[in-house]
């Protein structure tokens, strides 16, 4: 069953001009439990606006969003409760830090969720261990390096144990190792705890690597939703969205011209490598 359903979502900023354009224009899609969804599109295509709708921060001009089958726009809907189940991490999450110590900051969301102080701090410590920064728990978040701050900010959302985790460009500003670790961590959550993942990214190679579903947005409209290969190899869609194909598909296409047909279901980095090794 789909965990999240977006129906004919339209959104426009009220800027008192008649010509005001829709930032989101009739967007519909559904996401199943355990999906790993990538949202791609140029800057200004409406990606960030879209995810701000998914946990009810923005109210759509028209259309509906169903979480587990019930509309989040119902009058008596508990939006704060929803935000613990759908965790959104915005771009530059380090700007949300405010507490005196790292552990206090991470525990903030858990306490707001209703956990007792002991439980919240216990859970926060576990999460810090997950990010390998438990030694920083009593430091002030403002004395940390950029990468560490970002990890603390991530931990502050993870601690609420949401069913759906949403990220806006999570890897911006992370070094190579931290980036790989981060993706491995959410992959593990996705596989072991069935957490649904939605992420916005510019890096289409990462989409090929991690996602099982891709949404392409352009000027507020949804151009296509589907499996990574299906979507990212669609020349017309990619051209309309003004995006370059990921390297895996470029290589696939180049090899096809040369007469080698690779398996389209095996285009993750290691799979591609193995396929290329087998070519003689």
């Amino acid at each position, binding site marked *: 069953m789909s965990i999240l359903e977006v129906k004919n979502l339209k959104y426009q900023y009220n800027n008192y001009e008649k010509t005001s354009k829709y930032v989101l224009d009739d967007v519909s899609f559904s996401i199943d439990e355990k999906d790993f969804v990538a949202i791609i599109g140029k800057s200004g295509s409406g990606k960030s606006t879209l995810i701000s709708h998914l946990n009810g921060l923005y109210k759509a001009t028209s259309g509906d969003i169903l979480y587990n089958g019930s509309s989040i726009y119902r009058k008596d809907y508990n939006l704060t409760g929803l935000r613990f189940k759908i965790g959104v991490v915005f771009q530059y999450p380090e700007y*949300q830090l*405010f507490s005196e110590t790292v552990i206090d900051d991470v525990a903030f969301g858990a306490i*707001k969720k209703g956990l007792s102080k002991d439980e919240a701090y216990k859970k926060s410590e576990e999460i810090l261990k997950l990010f390998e920064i438990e030694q920083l728990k009593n430091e002030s978040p403002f004395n940390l390096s950029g990468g560490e701050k970002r990890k603390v900010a991530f931990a502050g959302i993870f601690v609420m144990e949401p069913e759906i985790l949403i990220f806006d460009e999570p890897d911006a500003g992370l070094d190579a190792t931290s980036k790989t670790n981060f993706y491995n961590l959410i992959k593990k959550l996705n596989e072991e705890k069935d957490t649904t993942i939605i992420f916005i990214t510019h890096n289409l190679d990462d989409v090929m690597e991690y996602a099982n579903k891709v949404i392409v947005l352009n000027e507020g409209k949804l151009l296509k939703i589907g499996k990574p290969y299906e979507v990212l190899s669609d020349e017309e869609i990619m051209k309309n969205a003004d995006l370059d194909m990921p390297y895996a598909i470029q290589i696939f296409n180049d090899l096809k011209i040369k007469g080698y047909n690779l398996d389209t279901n095996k285009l993750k980095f290691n799979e591609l490598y193995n396929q290329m090794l087998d070519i003689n």
Partner: protein
Amino acid sequence: MIRDITLGQYYKKDSIVHSLDPRVKLVATLVFLVSLFISTNIFAYLFATIFLIIAIYMCRVPFKFIIRGLKSLLILLLISIFFNLFLTPGKIVLSLGIFKITKEGIIIAIKMAIRLIYLVIGSSILTLTTTPSKLTDGLEKGLSFLKVFKVPVAEIALMMSIALRFIPILIEEVDKIMNAQMSRGADFEHGNIIEKAKSLIPLLIPLFVSAFKRANDLAYAMESRCYSSDAIRTKLRPLKYKKIDYMTYAYLLLYIILIFLTRYIKIDGIIKFERFL
């Protein structure tokens, strides 16, 4: 609510008001504010209203956009009306328990409301039709006589223009931080005053952190572009009065004279009208 603040926002349009010299607009705003506070009777308010309507019409900024700034002032407005209405001694018109509404209270409350509303609309028109840099250029040039007294007019002007430029950026930032904290379960809407004040901490600290970082970055960027407070700067568009500017000055003079004259108008009908209130 935060997006409703129109102060310091510029609204791009080609209109006569937009093209006026900023010094003229500054003087006009000042004259208008003064006129509001020396207005004593309905004639004066009538002239002020006409003046405002002409300005609104000529600047071609959508009316809805201009009055957006009022929303954030609503509470202040209500408080002022409340105090004037109930706390002005005088002839009692209506009494509700300990609250007594007096005739004088009603008049003062109405006057205060009009003044506040006109004041906000008037200054909104100034900032909506003048870019921050034009505005500060105008201030700099208009106040340049203060340089004689060692007042760093140019620096203050630059500081103001930068402050104005950063208002929309910081407003957007407040929005972003609010969204981020609300995603962690923060609640800015419910609870009593103490709880609400407490809930602002997660908002203000990140805002300050980011504002300081921005200030630091900006200082580096400005220095890289050869900014130095001792050097004599030139201007891309030096201010120069045009014919329309002199004409506007003339109209302004006419306006303030008219307002002054209203103080001496005593017509029976009007006085009766006041008594009726």
